[in-house]
């Protein structure tokens, strides 16, 4: 096993290996016990770094699964049997059941599915404080304080000239007062 093997194993573990290369590495892991041991060690290191619980009983999982598969008896699919009259009756009962369920769905679907046109009931709008990251968080151009002061003046003049109706009260000014750390 070379350093390149180790590097590729590490990349695979971090999800950074291209899918084309992944199959080669997986084949190599299947062939070489040493690679499997390294893979297991890398997994343990990952668990430890992330502070996850480590179960000592999970060692050598790949080999244990392989041995278990070898010792499992082969399951042979039974030959399809010729349908008896009893089975025909069962199929009829099944068909009736399917029809009943479909009919119930047909009747109940409008009730079960929410109607977008309907007004939401009381209590449906729980207050949410939702984090959102789409707007870059900054306060004007802090590297140019004169420009930032000018934009502050323009914003205050704008808000004072066109006060938001009784509607949002001081909300526009909260933008001015609320941004502190980037000034």
């Amino acid at each position, binding site marked *: 096993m070379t350093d390149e093997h180790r590097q590729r194993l590490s990349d695979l573990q971090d999800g950074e290996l291209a899918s084309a290369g992944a199959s080669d590495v997986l084949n190599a892991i299947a062939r070489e016990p040493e690679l499997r041991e390294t893979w297991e060690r890398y997994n343990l290191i990952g668990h430890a770094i992330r502070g996850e619980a480590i179960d000592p009983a999970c060692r050598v999982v790949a080999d244990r699964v392989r041995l278990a598969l070898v010792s499992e008896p082969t399951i042979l699919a039974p030959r399809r049997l010729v349908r008896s009259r009893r089975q025909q009756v069962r199929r009829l009962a099944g068909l009736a059941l399917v029809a009943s369920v*479909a009919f119930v769905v047909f009747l109940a679907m409008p009730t079960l599915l929410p109607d977008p046109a309907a007004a939401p009931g009381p209590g449906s709008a729980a207050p949410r404080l939702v984090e959102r990251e789409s707007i870059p968080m900054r306060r004007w151009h802090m590297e140019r304080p004169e420009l930032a002061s000018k934009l502050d003046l323009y914003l205050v003049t704008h808000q004072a000239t066109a006060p938001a109706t009784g509607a949002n009260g001081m909300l526009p000014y909260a933008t001015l007062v609320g941004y502190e750390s980037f000034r």
Partner: protein
Amino acid sequence: MRRSSVMNPSVSWRAASRGLVLLLCGLGFIQCVAAREVRPEEAGVEGDAMRQAGVLLARMAEAVRSLSYEGTLVYLHQNRLETLSLDHRVEQGQVEERLISLSGPIRAVARAKDRVMCVLPDGHPISVERAGGSRFLDTEGIDPDALDEHYRVEMLGSARIAGRETEVVGIIPKDDLRYGYRFHIDRDSALPLKSDLIDRDQEPLEQLMFTSISLQPSEGPVPEMAGPSMRGAPATSSTSQWRFDAAPAGFKLVMQHEMKQPDGSIIEHFLFTDRLSSYSVYIEPGVEDGLDGVANIGAVHAAGRKLDGHRVIAVGEVPLETVRAAIAGAYRVAASDRGKP
């Protein structure tokens, strides 16, 4: 010999059962689609909801204008949470308001009848006034019908804020050129206990919420309702040397005035609004030390560019695309054409 499906009972039963299920699912789908058709009684319910929202918004505007209250708010923007203190007093017919940050360096905004004062860290104190401006700092209610072209007004249920029951009203923008609001309006006092700035998907951009509030008796008479505010002003056309083509959809010029600077220079100020959202365009002489490009402070955006030895800057609580479009359409006319619209 090849067996036909007619001769094979199991195949025919399978086909029949599949056909039956498909038929019933199809009928169910048709019934659902039919159920989505707006029935007359549903249209009536929608109209009632609009009326209810209109009444609530009018009550809210009146409450903000006439009640005295103070409280603590949280202001959430992106992943940051700030605590603010708000003191709103109505004394002798005058509204005075003060908003102070309780965390970080002291930042404050105070509003009085004819003046707004700001104290911000590392910046010059800002004081904006408009002598004799009868419509300065006016507030007015929101008329849902007037917003119909660019917003949807909806009742969004109820919620509990600061220990009080509220009704939730949404003013939802129909496009990406403006923001809307979601107000949680106190059932008793009609004050907005939580205000969200939202986009067309109703995703909140900024949220301001009372965590505690106390109402106090107002002293003296309630402030008189002034005339229509800038946002309600009729559309006008520029009479200066500057014109604006292709303003963002729905935004109209409603005001223009000149701001005299300490050095004697004049900055021209143009206000555009769609009756709820608004932005201002400032045109200053000279092209040095100005904004070239875009900047933002939260959901407030600004865009600037050079034009004929001047700098054009648009500022407003509107999306970036809106301020960009606002400055893109600015141009200068010859002196002989200034009187023409």
